[in-house]
C-alpha cells in the first residue's frame, strides 16, 4: 500500500533522512520508532507530500506522491506533530471546513460522517467550543479527527499520543487499534511500550537511517529497550550483536 524507496532529505550538508526504505501492507499498522530528531517527522512530511525529497520516491497505492500529488493525497489523512488547527474556529466549524477542503465524496451525508468522526475520537461534547479554549489533549484529538475526515485509506499519525494523560493515551491507542484493517496506518512515537501495544511491525529510525525493522512477533520489549538505550543514551550505533 505504501512503498518508501531510498528516501533522502538533506538540509545543506546535514542529511536528515538518508536512504530510508520500507513497505507497509494494506491494513497494517507500522510503528516508526526513534529518538527526537531521528528523522521521523521529516519522513512523514515527505510521505504526505508536504515537503519534497532530495532523492528517492514514495508511492501510495502505486501512485507517486511527487508526480501525482492530488491523487495520492486523496488517499492520505495526516496528523502532523503539531495539529494544524485554526484556533478561532469551533470544532464543528473546523471539521466542516476540512470536509469541504478535502472535497470529500462519501455515501453517507456530511453531518453523519462528521458526527461519526467526532464520536470516534470522543470530542462530541466539545463540538461547539472554540478550539483555542480546548485543553491540549482535546486539541490533539481534534487534529486526529481532521485526519479521519473523508475516510482516507492511509493514516499518517505523527506522535498522536503526545500531550495526552494516561487515560487519553489508552483511549487513542484503542481508537488506532479499532481503525486497523479499514485503514493502513503509519504512526510515529518515541515510547517503546506504545509500539508493542499497537503496531504490527516496527521500524526503528535513528540519525536518518533505519536501525532495524521487526515484525510484531519478533518484538521483544527488553530487546527494544536495549536498542533504544544504545541509540539514545550512549548515542552510539548498533552492532550486529545488539539485534
Amino acid at each position, binding site marked *: 500500500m505504501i512503498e518508501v524507496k531510498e528516501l533522502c532529505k538533506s538540509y545543506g550538508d546535514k542529511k536528515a533522512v538518508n536512504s530510508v526504505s520500507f513497505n507497509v501492507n494494506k491494513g497494517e499498522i507500522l510503528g516508526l520508532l526513534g529518538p527526537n530528531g531521528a528523522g521521523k517527522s521529516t519522513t512523514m512530511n515527505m510521505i504526505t507530500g508536504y515537503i*519534497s525529497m532530495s532523492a528517492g520516491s514514495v508511492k501510495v497505492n502505486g501512485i507517486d506522491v*511527487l508526480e501525482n*500529488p492530488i491523487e495520492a493525497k486523496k488517499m492520505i489523512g*495526516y496528523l502532523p506533530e503539531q495539529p494544524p488547527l485554526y*484556533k*478561532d474556529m469551533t470544532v464543528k466549524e473546523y471539521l466542516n*471546513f476540512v470536509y469541504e*477542503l478535502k472535497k470529500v465524496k462519501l455515501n453517507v451525508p456530511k453531518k453523519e460522517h462528521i458526527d461519526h468522526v467526532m464520536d470516534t475520537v470522543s470530542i462530541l461534547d466539545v463540538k461547539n467550543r472554540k478550539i483555542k479554549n480546548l485543553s491540549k489533549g482535546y486539541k490533539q484529538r481534534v487534529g486526529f479527527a481532521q485526519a479521519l475526515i473523508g475516510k482516507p485509506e492511509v493514516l499518517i499519525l505523527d506522535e498522536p499520543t503526545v500531550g495526552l494523560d494516561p487515560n487519553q493515551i489508552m483511549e487513542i491507542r484503542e481508537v488506532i487499534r479499532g481503525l486497523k484493517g479499514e485503514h493502513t496506518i503509519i504512526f510515529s512515537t518515541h515510547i517503546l511500550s506504545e509500539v508493542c501495544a499497537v503496531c504490527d511491525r516496527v521500524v526503528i529510525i535513528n540519525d536518518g537511517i533505519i536501525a532495524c525493522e521487526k515484525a510484531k512477533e519478533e518484538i521483544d520489549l527488553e530487546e527494544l529497550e536495549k536498542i533504544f538505550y544504545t541509540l539514545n543514551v550512549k548515542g552510539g550505533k548498533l552492532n550486529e550483536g545488539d539485534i
Partner: protein
Amino acid sequence: MKAIYKREMLSYFTTMTGYVFIGVFMFLSSIFFSQIMFVNRVGSVNGILPMCMVILMLLLPIITMRLFAEEKTEKTDQLLLTVPVKVSEIIMGKYFAAFSVFLISTMATLPYVFVAAIWGDIAIGETFASYSGYILFGALLTAIGLFISCLTENQVVAAVVTYGVTLLLFFLSILNTGIGIVDYIISFFSIAEWNNSFSMGVIAPSGVIYYLSFTFLFLLLSMRKIESRRWR
C-alpha cells in the same frame, strides 16, 4: 477554493481584523471627504479617491500580512499542503477573501457619491472611471501583500515589507533623475502614475492591462513560492 475563501472570510469577521480595517478606513476617509466636500467645496468624489489610496496603503497590509505568514507560524499550512487541493486554489481563495474585504471598504465610500450627487455636481462616467482605477489599484496592492506574506512567517515583517514596497511604488514618480530613459522606466513602475487617467475619467486599456498583469504576476509568484517547498 470555496472552502478556503469561506474560512478566510470567517476569520476576518470572527476576529477584529476585518472590522478594524473597515472601521478605521471609514473613519479616516470620512474626515477627508468632509474636508474636501464641505470646507474646500469640491463637489465630486474624484478628490477623495486618491486620499483613499494613501489610506489603503497604510491599512491593507493589516489584511494581507496574515494570509500565509500566520499559516506558517501556526503550522496550519501542513493541512493545506497535504490535502488534495492545488496550490493555485489555496492562493486564489486567500486572494479573493482579502480582495472582498477591500471591496466592502470600497462600498463603504458609496454614500460619499450620493452626498456629492445631492450637494455637488458629479459626472457619472468620471466617477465610474475613478472607481475602476481605484479597484484595480486595490487589486494590485492585495496581490503584492499576499506575495510578501508568502515570503515570511513573521506577520510584522510581512506588513513592514509591504509598506516599504507599496509606498516606494506609489511615490516612485517623485524621483527625477533628468535622464529621459531612466525617468520613463521609473514612471512605468509608478503605480500611482497609471491611475491618473482613471481619475480624469478615462478607462485606458493600457492602465487596465498594467494593473491586471502586475496583479496576475504577483499571484503567480505567490503560487511559485508556496510550490517551491515541493521542488527537489
